């Protein structure tokens, strides 16, 4: 027995062996992951396997369990706890105020030109056929239609495209279009592809057959969503875990990428439950002579409550398709526990589907099945996502809702209100849980900062807002109000070892903010020090939700 204990003890030693604390992250706003790489092979993914693995099988992997326990946060954050621009993400509304028009103009691509569109291919996927067309300018688009209720999916996809693009993700250019049957002509080599991939020449009758499945709007035109072909060469999908072995730029495991972990909050906002790997896209693009992989999110047709319903509409966002905890709860309570969303969930407007704010709990939101990156979302990632969501102003949201081009104004108003209410729920939760302090600066010995909760209306007025500050190595803490605090005298280091960015860490300060319930939020850790350029004490960076 003694020998076994000794053996186990030595086996466990490596657990304590490594220093897991991250050093002060680099002061970079761009992660240069656009180095030239050879063209990777296509990486296919399986949706069925994704459901099976993420719902059940992952629980059987001891290695995964250990990795999850040892996850101490996202790896691709910079000194200011932000995600640098990369082939995955470009900071937009989270970094600076952008107008709605700027966001629309920034989408990669253009809407199709009016005129005669050439039909290239019809893909019958057993649901609603997709039509591939070329516009007079020679650009290729996939036309998608509303399968059941007019406006529902096309509007959701347009609105969510703009939201995700504004947030910073790479998305295709999706625009709502209307056309008549006479606007379509057949290409010489156009073909029809059935559900099993069999091809035959496309005929006018096929085309009319596709249009017959769609309800035309009042004036005889058809409404659809034109999704412009993404640039570059398709190389499959990206996974929410691991890295691509054939992409030398891809060195950060995807489940450790902040933009994927934080996507959970943004997905919760728009109820984007279908965030599986099948709705991702890797394109091998060439920009400025360099060829690399660019990572996209695609297919938002099931956001804002407009998706297919497996297990009923009200599950979406509240429960996984196979949710062990909900099933276990039902089992133990002999079925007497009622899922609140089953009892109180309701669809107000059919054009929007199940999208409400009354039952929305940001911290409990769930996609259709567990997402490996979302499973790793920690407080810092959640706060990061909430920071982006709450950057969307009321005015911006109203314009977003209008971009859905709903024919009924009350539907537009409902969507705008629900988006605002869900945004506020996210803000109230995350900006209260984590000290929402940003842009720290040290002027005249005073540490000044911005409080996002105060600025965005999720906390009391600036004067009444309380904070608590603690300096590294000191036991006592300083409680203060207002967004600045006088720091005690700090002794500067002489001849210390600077890091590769020329930074010398002198001291760390932790600041908490008062929560609505009277407790203290998770602190933000501010690093103070000197740089190669200046010996003056200054703020080197900060990290949120440090425990």
């Amino acid at each position, binding site marked *: 027995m003694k020998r076994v204990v*000794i053996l186990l003890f030595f086996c466990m030693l*490596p657990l304590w062996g490594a220093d897991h604390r991250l050093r002060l992250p680099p002061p970079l706003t761009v*992660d240069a992951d656009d180095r030239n790489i050879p063209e990777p092979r296509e990486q296919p993914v399986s949706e069925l396997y994704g459901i099976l693995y993420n719902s059940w099988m992952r629980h059987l992997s001891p290695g995964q369990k250990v990795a999850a326990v040892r996850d101490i946060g996202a*790896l691709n954050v910079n000194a200011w706890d932000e995600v640098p621009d990369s082939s995955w993400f470009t900071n937009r509304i989270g970094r600076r105020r952008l107008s709605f028009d700027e966001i629309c103009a920034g989408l990669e691509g253009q809407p199709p030109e009016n005129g005669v569109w050439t039909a290239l291919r019809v893909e019958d996927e057993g649901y609603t056929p997709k039509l591939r067309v070329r516009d007079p300018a020679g650009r290729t688009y996939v036309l998608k239609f509303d399968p059941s209720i007019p406006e529902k999916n096309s509007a959701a996809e347009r609105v969510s495209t703009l939201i995700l693009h504004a947030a910073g993700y790479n998305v295709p250019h999706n625009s709502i279009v209307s056309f008549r049957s006479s606007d379509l002509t057949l290409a010489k080599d156009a073909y029809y592809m059935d559900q099993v991939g069999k091809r035959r020449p496309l005929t006018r009758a096929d085309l009319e057959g596709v249009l017959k499945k769609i309800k035309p709007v009042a004036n005889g035109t058809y409404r659809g969503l034109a999704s412009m072909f993404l640039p570059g060469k398709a190389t499959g999908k990206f996974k929410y875990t691991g890295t691509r072995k054939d992409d030398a730029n891809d060195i950060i495991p995807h489940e450790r990428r902040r933009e994927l972990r934080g996507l959970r909050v943004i997905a919760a906002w728009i109820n984007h439950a279908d965030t599986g790997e099948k709705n991702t896209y890797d394109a091998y693009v060439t920009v400025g002579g360099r060829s690399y992989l660019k990572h996209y999110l695609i297919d938002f047709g099931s956001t804002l409550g407009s998706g297919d319903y497996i297990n009923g509409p009200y599950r979406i966002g509240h429960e996984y398709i196979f949710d062990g905890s909900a099933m276990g709860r039902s089992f133990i309570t002999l079925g007497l526990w009622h899922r609140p969303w089953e009892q109180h969930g309701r669809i107000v407007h059919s054009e929007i589907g199940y999208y409400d704010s009354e039952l929305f709990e940001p911290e409990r939101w769930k996609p259709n099945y567990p997402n490996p990156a979302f499973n790793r979302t920690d407080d810092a990632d959640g706060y990061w996502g909430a920071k982006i969501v709450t950057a969307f102003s009321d005015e911006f949201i109203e314009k977003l809702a209008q971009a859905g081009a709903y024919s009924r104004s009350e539907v537009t108003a409902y969507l705008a209100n629900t988006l605002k209410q869900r945004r506020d729920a996210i803000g109230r939760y995350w900006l209260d849980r984590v000290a929402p302090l940003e842009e720290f600066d040290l002027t005249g010995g005073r540490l000044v900062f911005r409080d996002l909760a105060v600025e965005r209306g999720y906390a009391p007025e600036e004067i009444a807002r309380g904070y608590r500050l603690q300096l590294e190595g000191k036991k006592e803490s300083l409680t203060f109000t207002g967004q600045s605090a006088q720091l005690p005298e700090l002794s500067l280091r002489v001849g210390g070892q600077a890091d590769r960015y020329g930074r010398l860490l002198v001291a760390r300060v932790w600041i908490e903010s008062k929560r609505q319930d009277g407790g203290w939020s998770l602190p933000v850790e501010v690093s103070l020090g000197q740089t190669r350029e200046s010996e003056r004490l200054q703020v080197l960076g900060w990290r949120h939700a440090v425990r």
Partner: protein
Amino acid sequence: MLAFLLATDMRRKMLALPAAGVVICSLLRPPISPAQQFVEEARIRTPEEIRENTRRPLLVPVEVASWPFHKLSSGMERGFIAFERHRIRERMNLWTEELRHHGVQARFGGSGEGSGFGGGGTYTLHAGKANSLQFLGLATFKAYQEFGIQWQSTTPAGSVIAESSYQWRSDENFYGLGHNSVRTNHSMFALRQTWAGLRWEYQVKGRVRWGALYRAAWISALRGGDPHFGPPDAFFSNLTGYGTQTRLGTAGVYFDMDGIRNEYQLGGATHFGASYQHGFGNSSLSYFAYETQLEGRLPVSRESSAFVGQANFELTRARHDSSSIPFYMLPHIGGSSTLRGFALDRFYGRNLALLSLEYRYRIHPFVQVIPFFDEGQIFDRSEDLSWLNWHRNYGLGFRFRSAGGATFMRVEYGRSSEGSEIHIVFGDRERPPLRGPFRYGAYKR
């Protein structure tokens, strides 16, 4: 490794073992790919930093346990990718649709419990909207075979159905007659059952139906296919019906009323049937069979749970000049549809009473949990029907459903005085209009 080999005593070897494990694990773990070795200042993290922060601890048990899991899951992933790339699911759907369009439908398993894994299909020919001719063929790996032909004509005055069936069941259980039969007397026999008949049925507003039928049947009980169990005549001498063919005619009437609208709503259903059997040729077989099934549902929680109670009674009354009724035509209980804590067809007797109480509740739209309690008895005379000798069991079941609402699998665990039984049954159980002298499908859970 070297330290382990060179260590002279066991204590030292044990100290060296973790070090050896660390080395082995390091060798097993793939290094950073050579393509990822380049590092620039402009990257947010260097590969070394990432490796430092993502490497798993070198725990030998974890590594060892993870390896087969990793191999299994990556193999599965490749399989699923191939499945989706070749659109197998879509192809199967298309084939199913195509076959259905031509009147062919696949069916899984055989009719009744214990028929084994397998399947077959039906082929239906339609002549107008009112007339159809259906052929059925089923076979399982348990040597079960069934073939049937059914012609149905629907008129405003009801449906007229001419039907015939052949069934071969090679592994039927028999433990003796009466409620005191002994479990160790487990014998097996094979049953060949052929019949042809005419049925008339009238349906009133979909909830009430009644009908009458006449069938001619040829039924034989033969030596079973499983060599591990002896034939019934090895345990029981002069068993009526074993080793001979019984030819008989059966005429009956039945009445069904179904007031169950939803799984978890207040409702009930009843079934009454009566039939008269008479032997052909020299046989003096002549008896009546009566059957009743009552079911009631009481909701507990809206749309998610309900109590379901069932009561089943079967009585046989032989005429005074009748010969003995063959044992396999007698009512019997035991198994997934009757007493779930007992082996299949555990008790045979002239009369049967069966009570069952279930609490059905939903834990998922596709999964239902059913704690149950069953109580049943076989009796020859009403005096034998004492509460003291009823057979009782309790247990827990799971019912798995498809998105369309049909049950595709039931798993039940029952516990009784004779031990535990696990039943795995595929598909929904359809109750025939009238059981009469035939063995299977009297109840539907």
